[in-house]
């Protein structure tokens, strides 16, 4: 029985408009179970975001295959919602209009979509900001709108591309807790790209460490221990996992730096 997401021997070559093609991903295989939270952790340039865009269907898979519930993906679909680091909100739309956009595309009847948009506004604590434009919001608020917009169409799978990377440290840790709270209420399969080791350990059930370019899965570390809120941050177990992953990532980060030198 095939459930969840399966990457099978995915290779990807990046072809810049000028210059030589670069092998970005070299035979990535990974399975993500339903309702599992997997973090892709690796140094910058290792192809972790590319892997996410391939899963999103935004870039065509040239070699290997990506399956969702046993079906090879073909292009983007509302079953896989994505959240980007730069928020990617429609700046000419208000908070409410941004959240409504996907619901309109899904053909949700008007009364129903107004109701649902309001629910998601409240879910991400933005009541009172429905008619604000993104330019009037802080970074954390923008990302909450983006999360609400993505969740509103009820995707089974949530793709997150360093979603909190542009936020300050305090906002980031508040967003971590909010995300976990939302996931507890309505669990989803999550693939979360990050280069932040602590973030990966704190949020994910499993962390897949990627090698420097060309990206491969170097090791998969189980990080599913009692996630009872921010208390775990001070436990020895948490520190151990962070240390172990940090050692793995460190080696790859050094390699990545040497490549760019």
């Amino acid at each position: 029985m095939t459930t969840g997401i399966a990457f099978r021997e995915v290779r990807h070559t990046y072809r810049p408009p000028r210059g030589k093609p670069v092998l970005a991903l070299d035979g990535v295989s990974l399975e993500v179970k339903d309702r599992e939270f997997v973090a892709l952790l690796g140094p910058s340039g290792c192809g972790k975001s590319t892997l996410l865009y391939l899963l999103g269907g935004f870039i065509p898979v040239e070699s290997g295959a990506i399956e969702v519930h046993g079906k090879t993906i073909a292009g983007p679909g509302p079953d896989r919602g994505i959240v980007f680091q730069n928020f990617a909100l429609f700046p000419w739309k208000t908070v409410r209009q941004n959240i409504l956009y996907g619901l309109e595309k899904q053909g949700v009847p008007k009364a129903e979509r107004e109701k649902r948009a309001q629910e998601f506004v409240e879910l991400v604590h933005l009541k009172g900001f429905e008619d604000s434009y993104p330019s009037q919001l802080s970074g954390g608020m923008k990302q909450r709108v983006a999360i609400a917009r993505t969740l509103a169409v009820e995707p089974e799978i949530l793709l997150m591309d360093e979603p909190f990377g542009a936020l300050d440290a305090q906002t980031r840790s508040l967003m971590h807790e909010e995300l976990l709270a939302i996931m507890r209420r309505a669990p989803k399969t999550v693939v979360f790209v990050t280069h932040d080791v602590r973030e990966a350990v704190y949020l994910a059930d499993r962390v897949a460490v990627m090698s420097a370019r060309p990206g491969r899965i170097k090791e998969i570390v189980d990080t599913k221990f009692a996630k009872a809120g921010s208390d775990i941050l001070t436990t020895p177990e948490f520190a151990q996992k962070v240390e172990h992953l940090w050692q793995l990532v460190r080696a790859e980060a050094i390699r990545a730096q040497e490549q760019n030198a």
Partner: protein
Amino acid sequence: MSRFLLRIAPLVLLGILWELAPRVGVINPDALPPFSAVAEAWWRLLIGGDLVTNGISSLINLAWGLGLGIVVGIAAGVLMAWYPAVDAAVSPLMKSLYPMPKSALIPVMILWFGLGAGSKIASIFMGCLLPVVLSSYNGARGVEQTLIWSALGLGASRRRVLWEVVVPGALPEIMAGIRNALAISFILLVSSEFLVGNRGLGYLISFLGDGGVYDAMFAGVLTVSAIGFFADRLYLLIMHRALQWRE
């Protein structure tokens, strides 16, 4: 208030100089009639109906030429940015047209579209097209990839994304391009009406000039300048309204 005075002072000063210079004989009154004479001539042209009929005729041509330039320009620029094939086919044409002074096309347009409104509309259209195409193209190319992907991921078709994401995303640049086109349209309107025809503000100016009625000719020039100025102000107002979300 004092800022307003400061801004208006040079204009008032210019008006006073304009009034005095011909009267005291610093400037030949035939070359530059005193401001009061021009104002009087303007009033005569207004109540005589010449200003209104020719003004309306000019504005209709302007609206057609500019309107067509905006519609075709946005469509061409956005489609070039969205479809590489359209880009490959159209962009050499655009690039070769770019350095050409558009007023040089007026005689060609007269040859093709005749002495009437057609050649004026075509000249204005040609002049307005490129700034709109270029700004639409650059604007559409500059729309962030993640915005397009977000819309696709939420279930929008590629065609929908073009109209619902690429065009609004390019709007700030498109609107700046249209402002340039608006300024160019006035230049081409007046110069094409100078050349041939029997109506329009450009025609009125050259007719009065040829007849030696210089105070009325200056009144015509002032009218065109004022219409151009207010059209730009009105456009800026519309632009700020439309782009309110940017603040």
